[in-house]
């Protein structure tokens, strides 16, 4: 059940993100990229296997039992990916504003086309 929900969420986010990414307005592109990065982050998280009530670390004193542990690596990866994605989105927003300032339009090509 968990797997189904996560899979649907990733699919929905990735689908809407891709659609927005292909839109002609820069703001839509930024939101599209953000949604896509959420989808990717969830996806990375899910590669470690989904389980509840499992900590990604070993308790002191108790013998480590891999069956009770969550995989810590995807969680660490996802943190890195979130930070990098966040910083890049911020940078993109600045460039977006600069482009709007230079061209006077929020079209991705700097001039109004159809759509």
């Amino acid at each position, binding site marked *: 059940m968990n797997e189904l929900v996560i899979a649907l969420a990733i699919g929905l986010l990735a689908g809407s993100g891709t659609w927005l990414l292909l839109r002609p307005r820069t703001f839509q592109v930024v939101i599209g990229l953000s949604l*896509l990065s959420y989808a990717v982050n969830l996806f990375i998280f899910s590669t470690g296997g989904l389980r509840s009530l499992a900590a990604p670390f070993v308790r002191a004193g108790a013998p480590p039992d891999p069956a009770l542990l969550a995989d810590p690596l995807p969680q660490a*990866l996802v943190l890195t990916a979130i930070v990098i994605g966040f910083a*890049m989105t911020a940078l993109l927003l600045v460039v977006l504003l600069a482009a709007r300032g230079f061209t006077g339009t929020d079209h991705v090509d700097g001039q109004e086309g159809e759509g």
Partner: protein
Amino acid sequence: MSGWQQHLPIVPVVLPLATAAVLMLIDEQRRAWKQGVAMASSLLLLLVGAALVRAADQWAGQGVPIVYRLGNWPAPFGIVLVADRLSALMVLLAAVLGFAALLFAVARWDRAGPRFHALLQVLLMGVNGAFLTGDLFNLFVFFEVFLAASYGLALHGSGAARVQASLHYIVINLTASLLFLVGAALIYGVTGTLNLADLAQRIPAAAAQNRALLEAGAAVLGIAFLIKAGMWPLCFWLPRAYGAACAPAAALFAILTKVGIYAVLRIWLLFFGPAAGASAGFGQDWLTIGGLVTLAFGAIGVLGAQELPRLAGFSLIASCGTLLAAVGAGSAAVSGAALYYLIASTLGVSALFLLIELVERGRAPGADLLAITEEAFGGFEAEEREDVGVVIPAVWAVLGLAFVACVLMLAGLPPLPGFVAKAALLSALLAPDAVAPSAWVLLALLMLSGLATVVAASRTGVRIFWMPEQQLAARVRVIEMLPIVLLLGIGLALTVLAGPALRYLDEAAQALHAPAGYIEGVLR
């Protein structure tokens, strides 16, 4: 086999990072300080690169790469940096380009915007890290580091054209980074490791029902690399972004496409080399055909380019196509020659990007378009003009000579290394008894693309250098010619020393195609 050499691989990452930190602390007004620090660091990086090549060659002679374990954690668990012959050489190449770009920028471009020097150092750090890292996720991190710096450098100097081109460049690369993450996550999900050497061991043993997932992951990862490498149809962003960037940045960006090529070469051969069992050779046809189409696209683009920066951009695409097709041939001899071509073409394109800015500076805006209209409609100038005894100013003579040298390098004509590279590539391709059909296509395309480069460049060259009325008084400083001469001089040295260079690169390629030493060295 221990001692100081063991610690060399970390230096090309830490040195530019520390320099960038110091540069951030120096006020923008203290230009001389900034230039001094950046220059000292770049020179040091050059020395480190040379030392690394030497050390890697010595170590590889004994069958292992230099492995630097961060925090001394054992390999599949900790992070490793690995310097074999190829990565060491790529680090040296990046250092050369970085030094040339810095030298060029010191004359005037570093004044066009803030934090130029720091961004350049961060870019070098990311590129070096990408060449040296031994695990997939750190490859992603280093990709992001140099991409972030490249966004800053692409925007350097500002202006509507740069901001517009950068917007596309950033969006495309962010999307590529997301694909990278998807690919890395899929591969991790199947194999449970991100260490490249460990992956190379586990992929042949992957369960049959997971194999499709693994290959899908590798394909997605490959798309991310090929966007960087500029394979058709993923390369339409390249001429515009590189053409709009300021000259030193564009010269440095010539190495970024090669990072993509390097990643394909390294990871494809580690994952899907002959030892990969059921997955051996996965994606080989895609690389070959994609490379051939890219080469054709680049050649057509070179012919059609009406402005010099676009011409340089398309010749970069053509060189990437050649490399991908050569990698796709899947033999060590061809890969060795391809590596030589990689160095020659990178030096040539980089010098061309620097040269273009000097040439364009001395010309009236819109001169290209004017010249084309003149050609098309028969010219507006007086017909009987006395051309005898026209004096070409010394600056233009030097620029013209440098332009010819760049073209010889890119088109693959003697005496510059482009020729040696193409000759070595073709002789390696045609060496086997049964020559693959794709090798004949590559041969034909290589010849044609060389011809296209010569045709396009001589047309442009005539238009620029032999039409004195369009020339404004160009002000070129010696320090701006120096990096171009340096890059072309290294090219000439590569021709003279083609024997040792090809020997080194051939051994590097042998190690790539038979990575047992690499795997053992990392996991030991």
